[in-house]
């Protein structure tokens, strides 16, 4: 830090930059970042948000995002600038929470007044209480009911109905009737029922929204590194940063080490290694030199490169695959969620019943006022209070339980689709296997291990990182190696007590990976293997037990896939292109199957988007994680099977909840049609059915075991 003595007099513009750092886990990380980052020149302050795994850095405008990422790496955290468009999800949750708070306030105060009316307050007191209730209820309903009214209006305009249509009609009619009763000094007002209904339904909605935004925050933290700008060399020799959308073919990009490519191109100058993990999920870096093509989304691991842009913005390979995924995902967006399917039946039945009750009482000569009161009582009592909670309550509890086991479900619809799968397709590399090289350390002595650690821990090469992780897991301490230098593409070298030591790249054939450790004149080879996840066979057994057929479909070589398929005892097909995977899934779907796709690489992206349901491991490429319904964090594959099992149990509970709601209606509707429902009975019936449904859903807290 050479900050001392640089006291610029001019006022500096401070800007806030949000960074995503998935590695933030605990209080120690918060303390470290907030203490160390402001010591970097130009950084004023840093504030960590642990839930979102973000750091908000306030700094001089001169400090670039790249510098901040570098500073974060300096204190031990991988960080990326936040991609735009990830921050807008919270708004919906906040609107719902505000509406919930207002409805809660209204419900409590109106109940206070209603209880005294129910316990016998009469005459002037009752009328005053009705007026007070009206004064509280009308603004509360107008505010808290907006999410429902808006959604109902949108759906009616599109010529459909959803759950919000009967809710909106019920609440509006109940409010109008109660206002009429109040104005005419009547005896029965349903303000309490209407507000309570909104409160319970909003609770369901807020739960649903909170689940989605929390998962998105976590997945947003996993997503990373897509190059959003590049340093472009101008004809006059100067370089300045250009946003990814404005890069044009023919420009010359300067790529520093550790930087992600923002466009496709061909290397013009420089040699280095490219990390394709973002695109393919492959761990081995690819060596590139002049003339080699490089792709947007990949990362330059070593020295600076000059890249001539061949395709930019929407024309990159990455963008093409993203487009393929968008199209494949269309069928999924047409999926109708269970709550909407139920309401498609429910709303007409309820509205017909209310109309029949009105007609029946008119024919019986009850007069239009009494008939209308009874018809509205039917609407209020059947208002889908328990139905509105039946789905979100169960799904939120199940998603929470799965989250604790390392599986992040994106939304409730994903759980519904997961419960229906009947065939599971697995990618090989990175899905059934760990997708990262694990060293075979059995041949090394303790001294060799500590030397290897000292050398490997300075390098960002995937093999070095794999070696470091493997050695640290064994509790090895680094040897005091001095003068360590890294030569990109060939290895790391240094000296230990005057003796030269080095970790060198070894040319390998096929899929074998290895490096050589040099100690003086002694050479030994460290082999790397991409191992199977520890619980693959248990997971496959669990799938078979659930009656789900398993297959491997992989873009890897036929022989490698066949060997693994034989080892695991399931059918496998190799050498499949992304388009062929997509076609295979479409074929299964036209056969009426519901395929589950589990895959990680970009080549799986379209398949993930097209499958009935899909899960990506946390190590998967960004696009795959975005396309998948759920992301499984950690080394184990078992959460995938757990997810399907939990999804099935969740849908079982959801059906039970619907059963409870129907049972409740069977008891309550005859009472309402007979004209026996008072506001007291309506309030008790509604809260009782809601509480039973919530209680039933809480049983899912153990669903993921």
């Amino acid at each position, binding site marked *: 830090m050479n900050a001392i003595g640089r006291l610029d007099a001019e006022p500096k513009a401070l800007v806030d930059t949000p960074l995503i750092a998935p590695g933030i886990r605990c*209080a120690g990380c918060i303390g470290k970042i907030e203490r160390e980052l402001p010591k970097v020149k130009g950084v004023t302050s840093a504030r960590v948000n642990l839930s979102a795994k973000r750091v908000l850095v306030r700094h001089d405008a001169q400090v670039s995002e790249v510098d901040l990422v570098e500073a974060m790496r300096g204190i031990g955290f991988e960080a990326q600038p936040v991609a735009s468009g990830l921050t807008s999800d919270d708004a919906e949750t906040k609107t719902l929470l505000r509406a919930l708070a207002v409805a809660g306030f209204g419900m409590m105060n109106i109940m206070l007044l209603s209880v005294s009316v129910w316990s016998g307050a009469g005459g002037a007191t009752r009328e005053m209480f009705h007026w007070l209730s009206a004064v509280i209820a009308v603004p509360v309903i107008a505010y808290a009911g907006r999410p429902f009214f808006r959604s109902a209006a949108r759906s009616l305009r599109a010529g459909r109905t959803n759950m919000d249509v009967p809710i909106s009609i019920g609440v509006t009619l109940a409010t109008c009737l109660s206002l009429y009763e109040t104005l005419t000094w009547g005896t029965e007002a349903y303000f309490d029922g209407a507000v309570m209904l909104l409160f319970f339904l909003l609770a369901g909605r807020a739960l649903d929204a909170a689940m989605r935004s929390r998962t998105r925050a976590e997945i947003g933290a996993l997503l990373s590194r897509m190059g959003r700008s590049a340093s472009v060399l101008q004809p006059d020799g100067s370089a300045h940063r250009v946003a990814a959308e404005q890069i044009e073919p023919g420009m010359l990009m300067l790529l520093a080490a550790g930087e992600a490519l923002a466009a496709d191109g061909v290397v013009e100058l420089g040699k280095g290694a490219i990390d394709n993990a973002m695109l393919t999920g492959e761990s081995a870096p690819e060596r590139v030199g002049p003339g080699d093509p490089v792709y947007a989304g990949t990362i330059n691991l070593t020295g600076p490169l000059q890249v001539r842009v061949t395709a930019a913005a929407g024309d990159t390979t990455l963008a093409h695959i993203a487009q393929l995924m968008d199209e494949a995902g269309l069928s999924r967006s047409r999926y109708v969620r269970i709550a909407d399917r139920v309401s498609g039946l429910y709303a007409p039945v309820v509205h017909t019943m209310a109309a029949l009750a009105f007609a029946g009482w008119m024919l019986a000569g009850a007069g239009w006022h009494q008939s209308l009161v009874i018809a509205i009582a039917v609407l209020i009592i059947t208002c889908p209070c328990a139905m509105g909670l039946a789905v979100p309550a169960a799904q939120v509890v199940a998603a929470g339980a799965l989250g604790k086991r390392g599986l992040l479900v994106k939304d409730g619809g994903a759980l519904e689709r997961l419960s229906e799968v009947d065939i599971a397709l697995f990618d090989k590399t990175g899905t059934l296997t760990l997708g990262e090289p694990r060293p075979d350390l059995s041949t090394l002595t303790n001294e060799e291990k500590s030397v290897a650690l000292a050398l490997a821990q300075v390098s960002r090469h995937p093999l070095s990182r794999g070696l470091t992780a493997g050695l640290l897991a064994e509790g090895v301490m680094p040897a005091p190696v001095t003068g360590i230098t890294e030569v990109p593409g060939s290895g790391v070298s240094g000296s230990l007590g005057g003796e030269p030591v080095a970790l060198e790249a070894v040319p390998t054939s096929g899929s074998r990976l290895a490096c050589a450790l040099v100690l003086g004149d002694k050479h030994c080879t460290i082999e790397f293997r991409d191992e199977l996840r520890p619980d693959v066979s248990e997971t496959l057994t669990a799938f078979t037990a659930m009656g789900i057929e398993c297959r491997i479909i992989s873009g890897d070589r036929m022989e490698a896939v066949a060997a693994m398929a034989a080892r695991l005892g399931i059918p496998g097909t190799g050498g499949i292109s992304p388009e062929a995977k997509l076609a295979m899934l479409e074929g299964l779907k036209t056969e009426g199957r519901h395929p589950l796709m589990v895959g990680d690489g970009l080549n799986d992206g379209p398949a993930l988007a097209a499958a009935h349901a899909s899960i990506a491991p946390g190590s998967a490429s960004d696009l795959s994680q975005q396309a998948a319904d759920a992301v499984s964090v950690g080394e184990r594959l078992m959460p995938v099977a757990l997810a399907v099992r939990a999804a099935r149990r969740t849908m079982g509970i959801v059906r039970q909840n619907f059963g409870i709601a129907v049972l409740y209606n069977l008891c309550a509707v005859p009472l309402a049609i007979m004209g026996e429902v008072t506001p007291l009975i309506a309030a008790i019936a509604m809260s009782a059915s809601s509480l039973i449904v919530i209680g039933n859903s809480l049983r899912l807290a153990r669903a993921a075991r």
Partner: protein
Amino acid sequence: MSGLTFLIPIALAMGLIGLAAFFWAMRSGQYEDMDGAANRILIDEEDEL
């Protein structure tokens, strides 16, 4: 009965204060980072020296 003229306004006012407090808390970002708030008490301030 005359007690009601005091009690009902008091009940309403308390409810409104609670509601206002919730809105204020939400606006000032106190629900932005629930996990972080729980963890921050574990940070040792002495480390800064």
